């Protein structure tokens, strides 16, 4: 059917995003209005229209993505999910003492939700009239999460037992005027032992997701190591510590210089109103500064993780390459937040469009022999519960 042509050289081409803020604003506000008027019954249609808008405006070469989910199925899923959430929220309010148990119950559901929501999303995403697919494997999903978490719990229990056996506890209990609680220590030990595992769990999660995705018959594969994830997280951690140290020292110097010049005391041993005012202003300014820097640290982490993930992802002959910049993402997050707050939410559509545009334009795609990819023979029928998982919308974004 096809005449033999000389094999073209592999060409990298950028993702392209063609959404328009005003156009999306109109879709967005109509969606909200109809969702309110119908007491939320329209919201699945709103979701489908939004997803189709973003998928349809995302292009590689001259083909766009498609979102094919059926709103009626999403509606059914949402009714169930809202029921679960309502029960959960009522329970937490009635038994605040058991909220930790309720939370761990939800945590146990996470792998299930992750798998089902990915399955639903992938099944309903298509490119070039070929659907994506997510091979559901609940057992692996649970193993992936429970083994590291189990290790963390064992380590926590171990350290806590040693800690209880030591006379350190008694010292603390005697020294302290009754404010000290053993449970607080347990919490700290848990946090301390879970933090080193976070990069590993993130690595496992992303590798699992990529490996289970198929584009037609082309299986996803993930080619990086946990060590690369540790490097990213470690760098982010050091960056954060460094920035905090730097800012604290800077604040100290400014305060010191100021007090040396102005004098601290207002005569009768009380701080003068002027110095109080200045220290409050400084504290406030540095508070804001930390908050702002938080966006850039967040942006850095997001960008590095996305680059690491996409640049090491292959679907058979297809490859991705992503070169997001942390500073740019941080700036987008910060300016979007300011814009949304100042516009009382009116700029939400604008902020979504510009983020989507930046992410698309920073991602490349190697379209080598795409013709060789064929559709998977699959029954167009999904397992019960997939759309329930979709409600929780665990985002990896593709």
């Amino acid at each position, binding site marked *: 059917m096809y005449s033999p042509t000389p094999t073209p050289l592999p060409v990298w081409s950028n993702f392209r995003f*063609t*959404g*328009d803020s005003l156009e*999306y*604003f*109109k*879709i967005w*506000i*109509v969606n*909200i*209005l*109809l*969702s*309110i008027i119908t007491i*939320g019954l329209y*919201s699945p*249609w*709103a*979701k489908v*229209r939004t997803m*189709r*808008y973003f998928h*349809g*405006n995302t292009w590689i070469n*001259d*083909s*766009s993505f*498609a979102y094919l989910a059926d709103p009626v199925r999403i509606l059914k899923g*949402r009714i169930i999910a*809202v029921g679960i959430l*309502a029960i959960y*929220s009522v329970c937490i*309010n*009635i038994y*605040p*003492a*058991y909220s930790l148990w309720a939370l761990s119950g939800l945590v146990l559901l996470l792998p299930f939700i992750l798998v089902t929501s990915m399955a639903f999303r992938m099944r309903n995403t298509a490119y*070039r*009239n*070929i659907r994506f697919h997510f091979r559901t494997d609940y057992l692996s999903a649970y193993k992936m999460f429970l083994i590291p978490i189990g290790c963390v719990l064992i380590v926590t229990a171990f350290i806590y037992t040693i800690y209880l056996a030591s006379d350190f506890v008694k010292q603390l209990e005697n020294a302290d005027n*009754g404010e000290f609680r053993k449970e607080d220590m347990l919490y700290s030990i848990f946090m301390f032992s879970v933090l080193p595992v976070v990069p590993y769990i993130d690595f496992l999660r992303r590798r699992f997701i990529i490996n289970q995705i198929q*584009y037609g018959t082309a299986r996803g594969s993930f080619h990086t190591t946990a060590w690369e994830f540790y490097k990213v997280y470690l760098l982010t951690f050091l960056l954060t510590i460094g920035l905090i140290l730097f800012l604290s020292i800077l604040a100290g110097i400014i305060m010191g210089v100021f007090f040396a010049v102005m004098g601290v005391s207002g005569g009768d*041993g*009380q*701080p003068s109103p002027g110095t109080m005012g200045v220290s409050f202003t400084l504290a406030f300014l540095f508070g804001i500064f930390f908050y702002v820097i938080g966006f850039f640290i967040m942006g850095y982490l997001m960008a590095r993780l996305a680059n690491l993930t996409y640049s090491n992802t292959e679907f058979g002959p297809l490859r991705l390459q992503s070169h997001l910049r942390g500073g740019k993402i941080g700036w987008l*997050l910060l300016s*979007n*937040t300011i814009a*949304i*707050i100042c516009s009382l*939410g009116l700029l939400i559509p604008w*902020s979504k469009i510009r983020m989507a545009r930046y992410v698309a334009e920073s991602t490349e795609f190697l379209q080598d022999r*795409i*013709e*060789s*990819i*064929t*559709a998977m023979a699959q029954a167009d029928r999904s397992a019960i519960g997939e759309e329930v998982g979709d409600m929780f*919308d665990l*985002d990896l974004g593709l």
Partner: protein
Amino acid sequence: MIIKGKLYDGMHAGSRDIRVTLGADGYLSAEPDGFAPVSIQQVMVSVRIGNTPRSLTLPSGAMVETTENERLDQWLAGQGLKTSWAHRLENNMRFAVGALVTVAVIFVGFAIWGIPWLSTRVAYALPPEVNNYIGQGTLETLDKRVFKTTTLEADRRQRLEQQFDKLLPEDSEAIHYRLEFRSGGFIGANAFALPDGTVVVTDELVKLAQNDEEILSILLHEVGHVVHRHSLRQVISHSSLLVLTTVITGDVNSAGSLVLAMPNVLIDSSYSREFETEADTYALEHMGEHGIPTSRFADFMERLERCGMLLAKAKDKQKGEAEPEEIPDCEAVEQATEEPAYYSWTNYISTHPPSADRIARFRQARK
């Protein structure tokens, strides 16, 4: 009419550029290298959203993707197939502005009237067991985290309990009121009501009062909270706002969630102020019945506020000293400075409306 598009056969990911002929007879075709004529009745045309490309899925499973929305819609209209109503709304700037105004009005209206109405109705409709569960759970948590056992003498407590029993509404609607004493820990002089009718008073509050009538006036205020189901109403408004925002927005994104949290905080603080005023009204209305002058409440609130100021000063002084002493209690500060003082006013005051207004209200009430 001819539109350009790409043909994907649905079997593999390759594509072919084609020109689709849209016939006046309702048939479309792309010959010779595309597909044979097929009736529009058998083709699934994707609904239009903005200016995103459309797909025409043929009975064979092959799909044509085209960006020529205007010409396609024009032809479809000629075949009696109009564009969807949703797209016509989304494509209309005037409707968008109207929708915006309507949404703003609905949201503000719902926050001001809808949620209080809803939470009140639900709060009164729920069986008393729910109140008991919430009350016991909360007290357990607070006992673990905040309170210690009371240090008040038993007969002092008994006297207050007896007086408290006389304050209770005659028609208590299956609510079992009881008075509990606790040492307040870091929350200091405070009193609050749990939905099951338990009223907790801290030792510090009892000690701060100069007479029992002051304590009773505060207790009446707390009984007012129970009578009006305030805790339950707050829980319900919380949950309903949460569910509402989740359902409307579908997916709440990072930047968006901050904004969505803001009305929650604002509404919350305005509700709690409203609740305090309601409980004050209850206390005002019932103080006369029990022969308590309304000025007692005002006296106590004033003392609570003044003491806080003094404590702040005392704390500052301590910082200068080499070995910080234990934080002085009210009497110590009172004796040292010859002014009444007490600590931990902050919590009581910050969860309550501007106290000057409230005090004035009790001062101006008929004696």
